[in-house]
């Protein structure tokens, strides 16, 4: 079995916001570094499995509009996440399956037809100098990923080494459904849930919210009926968890996300459950969402069930 090495990806057009991401970096809370990583980690993990990489290999995360990428030496690639209407030298290509790109072919992605993010995974993974054990890009600080920034026209990315033998793989359609988009985010009570009146909590669960334009990997600003915390209480700044739903005095919630601030001083009405965090990564500005409260036990069961589904032998078809 021979190995392929020294292969590259040339960025012909970068798309709106395309970054190198893996599953992020843990353990740096004490110096204020958030985890970063793929906004939809399930899409990245499945994409990596389709090209026989470790689940945590680095891929490209595209946002709302994709780019055009040329593979001068060829590659095995897979697209997962939202459908960006991909083509290969003009012909439509399927999502959720591994395909071979011949030397010199260009894969072109357009505007999204479903959610916010599409992932391009390549056999061998994207090779960048790791920062704190991760390839993930942290845009605010310009750390990690490819030169700490979003990709630009003309960038040349290196593909990691991989064995050359490879069998085509696809996600079984019924399995993919399990992870499909839903516009209901389930949440558990936040550490300051009792700072909100019954009316506010009811309104939070019953009304729908719109994802604001000023939403990004740091946080999603929601628009809708305000759910203000009870006034007059002063909070001491504390650590904030991934998916925390904080509510400033104006009452419009903000979901803190993977490039989030690590501490904050606004009360948190709830926290998106782990099993739904990947859905947050697929929300686009102007999407309508609702919240559904669940218990901590239910949240844990949903995560266990999701991981079981992800590890199921029936997920991938060869």
């Amino acid at each position: 079995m021979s190995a392929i090495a020294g292969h590259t990806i040339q960025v012909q057009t970068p798309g709106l916001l395309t970054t190198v991401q893996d599953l992020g970096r843990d353990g740096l809370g004490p110096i204020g570094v958030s985890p970063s990583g793929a906004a939809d980690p399930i899409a990245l993990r499945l994409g990596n499995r389709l090209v026989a990489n470790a689940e945590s290999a680095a891929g490209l995360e595209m946002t709302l509009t994709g780019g055009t990428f040329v593979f001068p030496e060829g590659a095995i690639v897979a697209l997962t996440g939202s459908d960006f209407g991909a083509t290969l030298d003009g012909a439509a290509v399927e999502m959720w399956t591994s395909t071979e790109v011949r030397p010199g072919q260009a894969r072109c992605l357009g505007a999204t037809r479903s959610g916010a993010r599409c992932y391009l995974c390549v056999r061998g993974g994207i090779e960048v100098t790791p920062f704190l054990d991760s390839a993930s890009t942290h845009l605010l600080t310009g750390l990690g990923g490819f030169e700490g920034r979003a990709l630009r026209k003309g960038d040349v990315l290196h593909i990691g080494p991989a064995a050359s033998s490879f069998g085509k793989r696809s996600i079984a359609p019924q399995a993919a459904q399990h992870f499909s988009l839903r516009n209901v985010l389930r949440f558990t009570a936040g550490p300051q849930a009792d700072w909100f009146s019954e009316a506010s909590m009811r309104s939070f669960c019953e009304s729908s919210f719109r994802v604001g334009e000023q939403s990004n990997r740091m946080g999603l600003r929601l628009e809708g009926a305000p759910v203000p915390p009870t006034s007059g209480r002063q909070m001491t700044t504390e650590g904030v968890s991934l998916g925390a739903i904080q509510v400033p005095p104006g009452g419009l919630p903000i979901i803190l996300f993977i490039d989030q601030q690590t501490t904050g001083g606004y009360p948190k009405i709830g926290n998106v459950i782990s099993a739904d965090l990947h859905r947050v990564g697929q929300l686009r500005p102007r999407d309508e969402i609702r919240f559904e409260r669940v218990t901590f036990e239910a949240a844990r069961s949903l995560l266990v069930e999701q991981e079981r589904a992800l590890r199921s032998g029936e997920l991938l078809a060869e």
Partner: protein
Amino acid sequence: MPAPVTEGARFQAASDQSLLVYFGDAISLDAHERVRRLLLSLDSRPVVGIRNLHPAYCSLLVDFDALRLSHGELEAILREYLERLDAVPLPSPRELEIPTCYGGEFGPDLDEVAALHGMTPDRVIELHASVTYLVYFLGFVPGFAYLGELPATLATPRLAAPRRSVPAGSVGIAGNQTGVYPFATPGGWRLIGRTPIAMFRPDRGDMSFLSIGDRVRFTPISAARFAELQNQ
């Protein structure tokens, strides 16, 4: 006789994969030292399944792998650490200086802060540089240290509308806190000066210039000295 530490600790689930440990609900030196002791002991004897730690004024947020630990299991483990907390020695604090050029383009809010308190800009500088501050914790963005406390006469509310972008190195004040913005970020603190020191240096072993528990003073410098230090 001081109460055993575990009596003062309160546990609160923050999410399905994180647990908050509170030592009271207010800023105090005692709470700060308990947070540090717990952080230090978890650092020296790591718990399998803990993914991240976020210290703050009087709390420690513990992120864990929900597939390996439950809130109850983690709480039981942390209670064992808390029982031995008083025996955890705190290293003697480092003393660091942050050279700061006050006012002018570096401190666009200095004059307004002075006017708010009915004092001269020079007096604001003198007061800000007169105190040794404690690094309560780092958070918000990489390398951002929450420093306390400002002299009471300098306590100033945040800007009504935060700036869209605050230049890296800006020295700000808000309430009774002061801090340095390590990166160009949005910010609502009032800016009184700027330091040429890089607060976050990813290429160094100790990436953050400041660490939890450090003692810090601000030293006024001229614009010429600022330029010199920046070019070093």
